[in-house]
């Protein structure tokens, strides 16, 4: 498939608010991103099937009242989650950033342990241990994992990305914690982990929310559903990086976006 044929649905409802920068990122890479309101899907005005990738952007969908992502997820449960399941089964990509990650967890598409779609959430992104919204740049290390589209970044590489959330503490229920975590490690589902600048798995503020096992981003067993708390779309160009005025030329977010696009080009 050619780049300029790739159609990417950037989903939104009231309160998603990082769609523009995500849209721009895909646009700059030569694909055809498109804003798709959930109402357009549920009213039948647009069809999921027409896209190769669904991108659920960050924000405060539905105000994040109740729980972050819960309202967006419930809106999808009512209407399009069957279509979404088929989309995923077809091997197409579904990415959720920040609020989008929360939505995928709430919907049960991530972490997808022993299933492609769990009816009830298997994990939670709970309130940050600091009990505050935190906007800051952090470091993550890319772990060995099964996301084909993260291959642009070497395993073990440390990259800087910004986070901005109040609910990002990845946890399992106490009774499943050990079992699920081991399962995810065994299946290479843990993609990004918070580290300090030297690559050590450190505590707050390097682990900005208190996530279990410093988890920042994960994928499903097949590697085609991916969720992460940091915002690659805010680290896309050199001038978004806080190091640019220290003469660092880093564009970590672009690597992530480019990987997704390259993967679709190859696969479809």
């Amino acid at each position, binding site marked *: 498939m050619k780049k300029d044929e790739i159609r990417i649905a950037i989903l939104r409802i009231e309160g998603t608010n990082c769609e523009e920068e995500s849209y721009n990122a895909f646009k700059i890479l030569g694909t055809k991103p498109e804003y798709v309101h959930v109402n357009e899907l549920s009213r039948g005005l647009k069809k999921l099937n027409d896209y190769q990738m669904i991108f659920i952007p960050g924000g405060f969908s539905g105000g994040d009242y*109740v*729980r972050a992502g*819960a*309202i967006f997820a*419930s809106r999808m*449960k009512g209407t399009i989650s069957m279509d979404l399941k088929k989309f995923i089964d077809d091997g197409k990509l579904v990415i959720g950033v920040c609020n989008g990650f929360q939505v995928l967890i*709430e919907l049960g598409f991530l972490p997808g342990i022993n299933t492609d779609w769990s009816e*009830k*959430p*298997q*994990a*939670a992104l*709970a*309130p*940050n*241990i*600091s*009990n505050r919204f935190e906007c800051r740049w952090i470091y993550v290390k890319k772990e060995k994992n099964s996301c084909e589209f993260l291959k642009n970044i070497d395993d073990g590489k440390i990259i800087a990305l910004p986070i901005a959330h109040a609910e990002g503490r990845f*946890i*399992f*229920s*106490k009774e499943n914690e050990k079992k699920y975590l081991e399962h995810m490690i065994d299946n290479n589902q843990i993609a990004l982990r918070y580290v300090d600048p030297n690559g050590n798995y450190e505590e707050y503020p390097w682990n900005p929310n*208190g996530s279990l096992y410093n988890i920042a981003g994960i994928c499903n067993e097949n590697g085609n559903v991916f969720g992460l708390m940091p915002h690659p779309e805010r680290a896309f160009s050199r001038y978004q990086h806080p190091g640019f005025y220290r003469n660092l030329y880093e564009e970590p977010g672009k690597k992530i976006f480019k990987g997704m696009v390259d993967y679709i080009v190859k696969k479809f």
Partner: protein
Amino acid sequence: MVKVKIIVSYKEGVEDPEGLAIKKSLNLLNFNNVKNVTVSKLYEINIEGDSSSVKKEAEEMCDKLLVNPVIHKYKIEVEKI
């Protein structure tokens, strides 16, 4: 019309940062004998109709929106109004 009260709280063992923060603030305010604080949400939902099926409906609301069973437990009470 019935009123459904749903209390959603964290399960035992799930850390509640808000509760911890409030405990700390209360201690700083010289309420030194405060030993533990938990914070839950109380949803009061007015539903038209009778109360027979309401409990089941409320459970469904928890399931579909109000609760993530990984971290939450809940309690439902139904009241005629």
